[in-house]
């Protein structure tokens, strides 16, 4: 049998043999970059992509004659945290292998992970710093760019104060990068620093943390394998977190688990569900209350759990009583029998978990939605054990970490808040005086005032000065790793960007920010490498930290976040010097770090963070321990994530999921499942956090008769402080060194501010959880709706329900005005002209704003057109054929403008509902903006952004934007 030509027909000379001669001996890094750069410039349009099978040698086969290095990093796309194994030769990433050892992905990837190597081939990457001169992009060098930017920033600072600059960081930065960015903004003197968590799970963090302590996924993807019932509500993990489906479907198969999808849209996830419940968009709370109505009616709730561990459930009962099956069906469209069945399954077939994503969070009632979800879990006793819990699938690869490290307008790193105690704590960690930090701000009061969120920055540019509660409007903006098409109301965004005095975009690709507004000057692009080209840790959705090693050096002229910020700081200092300003950033902000050839080392940044991040237990994950875990991935159990006996990681949970209490030397194993009372705190056990005092209106907030395994205190207890230790008589168990540290801090400290971590150590010695042992709150009295109530979306088609379920009144927050009822009251006039509900969501091939993934040729090929899903009934009424062009208009768009997209006629959406993916940009109300990109760095695929159509609407707690329910009209083009 003929198998190999070499055997049967050796000596045949062919074309292929001739190719072999072209690049014999393999490819080195320089040749590779040269070729990659050349092809990048050459291919400016889709049509120019070569369609032959003859491939450019740039990508290069593995040359088996030369040594191959295998390097592990983490996929930069979603929060599942898949390990990426790269094969590197001569500094070129030549191949990708399955990462079998990772307990999270076990060798697998989704389309994005399997195509990730393309990111560092970089055909469409931003290759060198650029600036706009009279509307044309010009190449400049790093020093020139940074010096010019620094001069402009210092001018803004002098004229308008530090709050006039908006710092937008990224959930795609490493923990170290995001932390450094937050610290950088603090040293600049503003709280106007934010990242994608605002538009992702800010409402989850607020809602969940206000319920039981921490705003994070309570369990893990792997743990869902043990669930008996899972409800996925407002999430499409089959597209958003495909590798998580490996665990979900395994659980579904192994346990014959119920997989219930509650969603307005029949998603790819719903296709695999055992039950699909279609709801009207924006009616999550009535659905949950409707379920609880059946649960309470039939006594299916977990009465012991509620008594011991939940505060305020009776207030919930009062609200739930209003949601009888008839009212639920009237508001949500879900029939009684189906909802009863789902409620019974969830309450009885335990463990049951509730999984949600942005379908729950991106609402003007996002925080309330999430609170209702938590309440359902509490009522059925489904928190704090294997297979249950609030499994919140985060979005970006490090959105959990970036949130934790405080890249946020309302807090310093690790949820310390913005009050004076928080500033004092972090000043100590940063080895600067509290007073010197305050001096960097316009006033100490501004240091304690939450900043402007990323959903509203353009309002802070455009609104009259007296409407913005800071010294001046926003004048300058520095963006690291963020898409410009991810926030709603893009016509306003474009106007805001145009008005800025300075726009700096630091990113691997130009992003929509670079092209959306027609800016002529004062616009800079800085090439930043991907996380694959630098080291650092990132936190997956399950709170596991994973260390990524640098696969290749940053390509072209790109630099990593650490070096870019370090040099940026230096440039600011020089600019200040030129202006005789006392302001200094580099010397102070970076003094605690080891500076290497590529800027501050990630290890030294993480170690500083370890010292300060006691509150979330980010203190035990030293770089050494994280690297040990990456090197021993194969030794962790698939389901429990625990290191196997007899291995270097025995007993530890994979990635030391936070909280990993105390210092690294304490060897806390991390916490796989939060609030799990079945484990000793030293083994990863826990209780609900005592975060809101010990009693309210005479009712105790502490747990009753519930405590974590091995606790010496067998009832609820408050969080540990020096005072509590003294009262318990445990104070003297602190070592002298620990006492000395506390003395240096002023003699008193709490577990979270004691830099010696002694209080934590002593509490754990007694089996106690440092943050206390309290009840979860079904009533969160500090929120606008202490018990969630249904509020119709602002742009609701059900104007008949507005009177009964109005949105909140107009108010002010985050330095800005916030419209509510005044806008909703206009719906009776608006809704008739915009009869279709528009929702948005994710495609598996793209991520976030999509600029990076649409620049990846392997991904871009799979989704070449922006589209709108429309029900066959609505399509037929409008004479719209599948695949035809249609025009979509939103109520806030200019009258004569529409977006032009392709129709996808499908029953995925119900009648009266349309859906669009949110990854597209580059067309703006039918204007093709391809020519505005720097040459050779335009993404392969461009399209209209859904956010050109989306409208006003913000969550009162976090200013999360409403992207899931608005109105639109669609007609054939």
């Amino acid at each position: 049998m003929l198998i190999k030509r070499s055997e049967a027909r050796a000596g045949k000379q062919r074309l292929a043999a001739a190719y072999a001669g072209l690049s014999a001996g393999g490819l080195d890094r320089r040749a590779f970059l040269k070729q990659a750069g050349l092809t990048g410039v050459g291919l400016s349009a889709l049509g120019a992509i070569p369609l032959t099978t003859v491939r450019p040698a740039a990508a290069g086969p593995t040359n088996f004659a030369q040594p191959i290095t295998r390097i592990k990093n983490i996929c930069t796309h979603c929060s599942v945290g898949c390990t990426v194994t790269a094969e590197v030769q001569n500094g070129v990433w030549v191949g990708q292998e399955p990462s079998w050892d990772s307990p999270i992905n076990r060798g697998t990837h989704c389309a994005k992970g399997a195509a990730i190597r393309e990111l560092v081939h970089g055909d469409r990457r931003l290759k060198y710093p650029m600036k706009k001169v009279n509307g044309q992009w010009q190449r400049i060098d790093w020093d020139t760019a940074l010096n010019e930017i620094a001069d402009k920033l210092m001018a803004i600072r002098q004229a308008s104060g530090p709050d006039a600059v908006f710092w937008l960081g990224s959930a795609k930065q490493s923990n170290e990068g995001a932390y450094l960015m937050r610290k950088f903004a603090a040293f600049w003197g503003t709280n106007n620093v934010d990242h994608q968590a605002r538009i992702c799970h800010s409402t989850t963090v607020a809602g969940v943390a206000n319920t039981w302590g921490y705003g994070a996924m309570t369990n893990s993807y792997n743990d869902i394998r043990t669930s008996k019932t899972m409800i996925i509500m407002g999430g499409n993990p089959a597209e958003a977190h495909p590798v998580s489906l490996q665990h979900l479907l395994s659980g579904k198969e192994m346990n014959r688990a119920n997989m219930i999808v509650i969603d307005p849209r029949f998603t790819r996830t719903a296709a695999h569900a055992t039950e699909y419940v279609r709801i009207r968009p924006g009616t999550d709370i009535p659905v949950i209350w409707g379920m609880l109505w059946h649960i309470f009616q039939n006594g299916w709730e977990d009465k012991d759990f509620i008594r011991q561990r939940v505060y305020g459930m009776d207030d919930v009962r009062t609200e739930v009583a209003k949601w009888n099956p008839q009212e639920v069906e009237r508001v949500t469209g879900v029939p009684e029998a189906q909802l009863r069945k789902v409620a019974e399954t969830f309450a009885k077939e335990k463990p049951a978990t509730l999984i949600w994503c942005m379908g729950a969070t991106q609402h003007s009632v996002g925080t309330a939605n999430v609170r209702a979800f938590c309440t359902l879990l509490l009522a059925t006793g489904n928190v704090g054990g294997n297979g249950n819990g609030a499994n919140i699938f985060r979005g970006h690869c490090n959105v959990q970490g970036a949130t934790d490290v405080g890249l946020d307008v309302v807090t310093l790193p690790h949820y310390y808040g913005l009050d004076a105690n928080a500033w004092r704590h972090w000043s100590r960690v940063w080895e600067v005086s509290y007073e010197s930090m305050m001096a960097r701000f316009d006033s100490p009061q501004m240091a304690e005032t939450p900043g402007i969120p990323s959903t509203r920055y353009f309002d802070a540019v455009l609104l009259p000065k007296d409407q913005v509660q800071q010294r001046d409007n926003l004048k300058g903006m520095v963006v690291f790793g963020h898409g410009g098409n991810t926030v709603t109301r893009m016509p306003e965004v474009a106007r805001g960007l145009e008005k800025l005095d300075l726009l700096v975009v630091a990113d691997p690709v130009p992003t929509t920010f670079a092209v959306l507004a027609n800016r002529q000057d004062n616009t800079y692009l800085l090439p930043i490498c991907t996380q694959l080209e630098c080291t650092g840790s990132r936190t997956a959705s399950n709170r596991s930290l994973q260390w990524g090693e640098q696969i290749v050096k940053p390509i072209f002229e790109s630099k990593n976040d650490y070096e870019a910020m370090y040099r940026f700081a230096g440039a600011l200092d020089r600019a200040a010097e030129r202006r005789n300003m006392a302001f200094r950033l580099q010397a102070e902000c970076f003094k605690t770090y080891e500076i290497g050839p590529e800027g501050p080392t990630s290890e030294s940044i993480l170690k500083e963070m370890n010292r300060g991040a006691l509150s979330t237990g980010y203190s035990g994950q030293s770089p050494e321990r994280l690297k040990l875990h990456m090197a021993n991935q194969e030794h962790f159990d698939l389901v429990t994530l625990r290191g196997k006996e007899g291995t270097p990681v025995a007993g530890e949970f994979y990635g030391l999921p936070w909280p990993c209490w105390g210092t690294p030397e304490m060897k806390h194993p991390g916490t796989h499942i939060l609030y799990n009372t079945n484990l000793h705190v030293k083994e990863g056990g826990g209780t609900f956090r005592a975060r809101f005092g010990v009693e309210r209106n005479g009712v105790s907030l502490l747990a009753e008769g519930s405590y974590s395994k091995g606790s010496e205190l067998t009832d609820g207890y408050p969080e540990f402080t020096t005072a509590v230790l003294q009262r318990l008589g445990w104070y003297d168990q602190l070592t002298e060194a620990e006492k000395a540290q506390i003395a240096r801090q002023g003699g008193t400290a709490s577990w979270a501010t004691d830099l010696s971590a002694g209080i934590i150590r002593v509490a754990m010695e007694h089996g106690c959880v440092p943050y206390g042992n309290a009840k979860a709150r079904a009533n969160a009295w500090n929120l606008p709706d202490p018990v969630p109530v249904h509020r119709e979306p602002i742009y609701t088609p059900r104007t008949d329900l507005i009177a009964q379920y109005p949105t909140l009144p107009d108010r002010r927050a985050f330095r800005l005005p916030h419209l509510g009822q005044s806008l909703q009251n206009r719906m009776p006039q608006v809704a008739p002209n915009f009869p279709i509900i528009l929702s948005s969501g994710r495609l598996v091939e793209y991520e976030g704003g999509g600029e990076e993934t649409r620049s990846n040729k392997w991904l871009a090929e799979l989704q070449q057109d922006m589209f709108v899903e429309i029900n066959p009934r609505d399509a037929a009424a409008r004479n719209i054929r599948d695949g035809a062009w249609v025009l979509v208009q939103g109520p806030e768009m200019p009258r004569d403008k529409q977006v032009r997209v392709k129709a996808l006629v499908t029953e995925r959406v119900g009648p009266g509902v349309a859906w669009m993916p949110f990854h597209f940009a580059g067309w703006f109300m039918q204007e093709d903006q391809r020519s505005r990109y720097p040459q050779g760095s335009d993404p392969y695929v461009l399209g209209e952004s859904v956010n050109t159509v989306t409208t006003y609407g913000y969550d009162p707690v976090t200013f999360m934007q409403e992207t899931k329910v608005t109105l639109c009209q669609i007609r054939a083009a």
Partner: protein
Amino acid sequence: MKIRILALLAALFIGAAGLPALAQGTAQQAPSLADEMAIQALLRGETVHGRITIPDQRAANLIQPQGREWREFHNVTLAWVGGIAVLGMLAILVVFRLAKGRIPIEGGPSGRTIQRFNGFERANHWMVASCFIILALSGLNLTFGRHVLLPVVGPEAFTAVSQWGKYAHNFLAFPFTLGLVLMLLVWIKDNIPNGTDIRWVKAGGGLIGNAHPDSGRFNAGQKGIFWITVLGGAAVAVTGYMLVFPFFFTDIAGMQLSHMIHSIIAALMIAVMLAHIYIGTVGMEGAIDAMSTGQVDLNWAKQHHNLWVEQELAKGRTATPPPAARPAGAD
């Protein structure tokens, strides 16, 4: 086919039968509707079609069972039909030749000629003919080459031949079609079937009995060739263009059908043309002159196209010659 259906039914049954025995969990799920519908579609021999995000809509066909039928056609039906048609015709011609010998000009050549085809007609004929021969050979090569030529010349040479054959086949399709159109325009008036043809056919074109039947410019046999060429050529051309522009006009089923029509008609045309070539060259004395010089011997013409000769001569008599010209045959 029957066995296939039974097996599929069995698969369906096994899928369903597995359920009750194992139905103990709470979250049971029947084999999905999609699976069942797809199996049903397969049973009916239909394509299983779905949605795909890439622009190539051909890729949305998940399974097309028609490929099997096409394979059967290509490897069996076409090979037999084509083989029998071509080899059969060759055999008939050999037998005919042996039985009847070369058809002579009765009474021998007269030495006087008459113009049968003008230069344009001849040029067009030869353009079509040469295209046809190359198209036929390259076409036959695709069907029979791997069995006949490949073992002789080896894979590389055979691929080279076939590759050039493919190019030639694709490009010569255009002049071939053009030639057909011109043929149609130039010769259609002489190829309208009439009563003479019936008599000609009854007489077997002269093979039955001794009296040669009457014939106009073209006898019924030639008219048959003409119409086979024009109509068959049109069918082959239309289907051929479908194949040259793959999936531009039609889907996979259309492509398969196009190929089937194209190849069967082409094979039959090749057989017919073999007879045409035989009779126009070595099979009949004097016939080749018509397409070489265009001047045929008068006796040949009278023998085969007596009515046409009369017509032509009558035309010559009635026509007013140019003043300086001498009347034909005056010398």
